[in-house]
């Protein structure tokens, strides 16, 4: 379903900005350090799980470049959405809407960080990984942030694609080619994001509606959101098990993926089947959201352990 797009443009300079130079901490804030932890973790898993070897210095460089690309995209997101951020309690204290930084500084910082990340990846690792990194930056900063986020309630699905790039790029940094395995890692995060985020959206009152961003629970309603959580959970299950099913991993990953998938479905089912009651504590939704974080970390950790076990011959 499409909704009319609100007139979103990059932020005009905050009224009291730039009297003083921004603190370096505010530039760091632009990179969304909390989101970065997931980016770094999944990128490391992609590097460690890939078949082949890479020098530790180059592995570090690849992960650094992925992180810088993500940070640059996040800074561009801050720049573009500063006017929206001003209208939401959660984001009003970000550097630009709070008036601590000029919006052009955030834009320039984002472009510089993204450009350096792609150059670094290309020169040190390879141009396939660098091209994927460039695509990831454009995907998040342009396709998601500027184009589709304000236009479709499926924005979370599209945003999930941006978060799915790090393990793919990490893997390609090691192997130099794109095979089914890194694409499956991409697909796992892509299909994991909607149930993860919409479970949160069901119990957290968001200001998005106020600023015209068409989030699914607001636009399509609670029932449709719960149905979509179930659909994406059902799609996620075979994809999570697929790396083992196609022979890309051993039984360690396979058994962990099966157990986690059963638990995920068991927690998603009550969320999909019920409706919010009066004075509802939203316990099933909170449980699903918390478990979804554990799910992703354990699944990717299992991938690395499985690879290490095979490499070290522990299972032989």
């Amino acid at each position, binding site marked *: 379903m499409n909704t009319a797009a609100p007139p979103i443009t990059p932020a005009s300079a905050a009224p009291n900005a730039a009297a*003083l*130079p921004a*603190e370096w901490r505010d530039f760091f804030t632009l990179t969304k350090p909390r989101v970065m932890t997931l980016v770094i973790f999944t990128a490391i898993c992609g590097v460690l799980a890939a078949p082949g070897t890479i020098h530790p*210095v180059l592995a570090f*460089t690849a992960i650094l470049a992925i992180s810088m690309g993500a940070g640059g995209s996040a800074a561009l997101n801050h720049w573009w959405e500063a006017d929206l951020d001003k209208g939401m309690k959660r984001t009003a204290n970000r550097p630009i809407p709070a008036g601590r930084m000029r919006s052009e500084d955030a834009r320039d910082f984002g472009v510089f960080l993204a450009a350096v990340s792609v150059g670094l990846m290309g020169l040190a690792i390879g141009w396939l990984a660098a091209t994927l990194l460039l695509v990831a930056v454009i995907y998040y900063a342009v396709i998601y942030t500027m184009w589709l986020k304000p236009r479709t309630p499926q924005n979370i699905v599209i945003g999930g694609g941006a978060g799915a790039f790090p393990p793919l790029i990490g893997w390609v940094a090691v192997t130099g080619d794109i095979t089914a395995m890194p694409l499956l890692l991409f697909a796992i995060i892509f299909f994991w994001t909607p149930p993860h985020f919409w479970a949160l959206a069901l119990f957290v009152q968001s200001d998005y509606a106020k600023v015209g961003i068409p989030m699914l629970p607001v636009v399509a309603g609670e029932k449709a959101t719960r149905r979509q959580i179930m659909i994406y959970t059902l799609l996620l299950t075979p994809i999570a098990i697929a790396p083992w099913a196609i022979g890309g991993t051993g039984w360690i990953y396979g058994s962990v993926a099966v157990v986690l998938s059963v638990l995920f479905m068991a927690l998603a089912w009550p969320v999909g089947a019920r409706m919010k009651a009066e004075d509802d504590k939203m316990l099933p939704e909170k449980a699903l959201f918390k478990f979804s974080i554990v799910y992703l970390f354990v699944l990717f950790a299992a991938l690395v352990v499985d690879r290490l076990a095979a490499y070290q011959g522990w299972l032989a």
Partner: protein
Amino acid sequence: MTPEEETEYRRRQKARNLVVAGTLLFFAVLFYAITLVRIGDPG
């Protein structure tokens, strides 16, 4: 600009300069390490 604002201006400028200097030093070391690895890599 009041004297307090000027002091704050200088403090922020100095802090930013230190971060930039540290970042440049870090990248100089990183590029040196990458070069050594790349030169030593026959592939």
